[in-house]
């Protein structure tokens, strides 16, 4: 999957997510949504990335109250396995 991935992109850890929706509201590109079809182990509908269109602005990262739920890979990010 690595080489197909287009940077920047956003990764949500759906197990850590509490579904508060702050990231969805913060996203200027509107590429995040609450996944109503999914429930995580805590019973939250988690946020998810639509798969394309991330601007790499970092709004979701700074707005998310869960320390590890959102990771944003910016343009110019080189994955460990490529280094």
């Amino acid at each position: 999957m690595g080489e197909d991935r287009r940077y920047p992109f956003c990764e949500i850890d759906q197990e850590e997510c509490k579904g508060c929706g702050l990231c969805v509201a913060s996203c200027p590109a509107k590429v995040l949504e609450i996944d109503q079809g999914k429930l995580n182990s805590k019973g939250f509908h988690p946020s998810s990335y639509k798969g394309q269109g991330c601007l790499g602005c970092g709004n979701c990262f700074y707005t998310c109250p869960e320390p590890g739920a959102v990771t944003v890979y910016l343009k110019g990010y080189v994955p460990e396995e490529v280094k």
Partner: protein
Amino acid sequence: MARPAVLRKPLGFVGRYEHKPGAEKNRTHYCPGCGHGILHKLIAEALEDFEITDRAIMISPVGCSVFAYYYFNAGNLQVPHGRAPAVATAVSRANPHAVVMSYQGDGDLAAIGGNHIVQAANRGENIAVFFVNNAIYGMTGGQMAPTTIEGMKTTTTPYGRNPLTDGYPMKISELLDSLHAPVFIARTSLHDPANIRKTRAAVRKAIQYTIEKKGFSLVEVLSMCPSNWKMDAVSSQEWIRDVLIPVFPLGTLRDRGSEAVEMKRPVPTFDPAKVREVLGVGGGKQKALARRRVDPKYADPSIRIAGFGGQGILSAGTAIANVGLEYGYNVSWLPSYGPEMRGGTANCSVKIREGSIGEPEATQPTVVIAMNRPSMEKFEQILKPGGTLIYNSTLIEVEPGRKDVETWAVPITGIADGLGNTKVQSMVAVGAFAGVTGLFGLDDIKGLLPAMFESEAMVLLNEKAVEAGYDYVTGMRR
């Protein structure tokens, strides 16, 4: 160090929250949409970027953020309600190299800890305070906080906060801005990404100033409490924007970082001679008196002195403790406080030890000096078997009840009266104590009197009193 091109969980957090009980070690305990997690992330990111995780110390308060120590990859202390600035002061003073942060909510900082924060700010302590203002008590279930706004319904203001009965919302940043010492005071908000970034900048500035030892910084952060506001997270952000900010305007109230210089506090010193001088003991003399050979049954005494208020009970105790100090013993003196002080009786505990002293109260004394009958009846009960009871036979006309202790009937008040001043009975008691136990030499005590009394006449009178008490008991021994 250039940041990698990825925004991920900062290293200012621990990887797994091992201190958090239960199976869930990856998620925080905060409610969905709570502002604490956002502020935690901004702080954790700064700890990583400034490379201070090995010398940052986070003081956690009481409130929802009581468990901040589960998360931060730093030194952590969790302290009693409102006391974070006091503990932060101690940590920062004791270890100036530490980067000390105090993290507090509005109930903690503005209510019970209101005076602590004012005093710490006024002393210009070198700490960064993160003050989370969500206008409500979160952990305890949504009660009114000092920062609750007018008309706001809480569990303790069900009709809305009414200034006529509940006062006005307290503006802590403005309050602290009236003080001279603080270096940086700002109010920010978490209600949208732009303001979260301003909060980020303020957090970093406060930490930077603390690293540079510039003094006291406080960042007040308007933060969401969706659970107690009974709103969803996004509506909570809108409520901050529309309702809270008009009451608590955002902005930097003070930034004196560019003119502030590194604080260089005087190095704490311990000067025994100065302490002696202040206490009026021994006139700053360094050398201890030569110890006397003491019968083992009188060595290391735990002493209880008791009588009427006005009989010089407490001063007899301080005199015995001070003389013990001059021999180089460890001593303690503990007056009794409580209703009995105003009820006309007084007592104190004195301990004299070769080694260290644990509890200063003589709960099982080896020596009791009873100056009146109620005191004898009360304290002979707790006298250790084989202990020593010195009682004032002028006022106590009954025999002691205990038969398993050594008793000394000394007409202490009568001796003092004979010297023309009833007040010197405390020094008669000191003399009797010295004579019975042999712990102190008569001439040694006399030598210390000039440091205890101001006028020469009082020194002479008390010399006679000590001598009379001493001679009376040594005469009984013969």
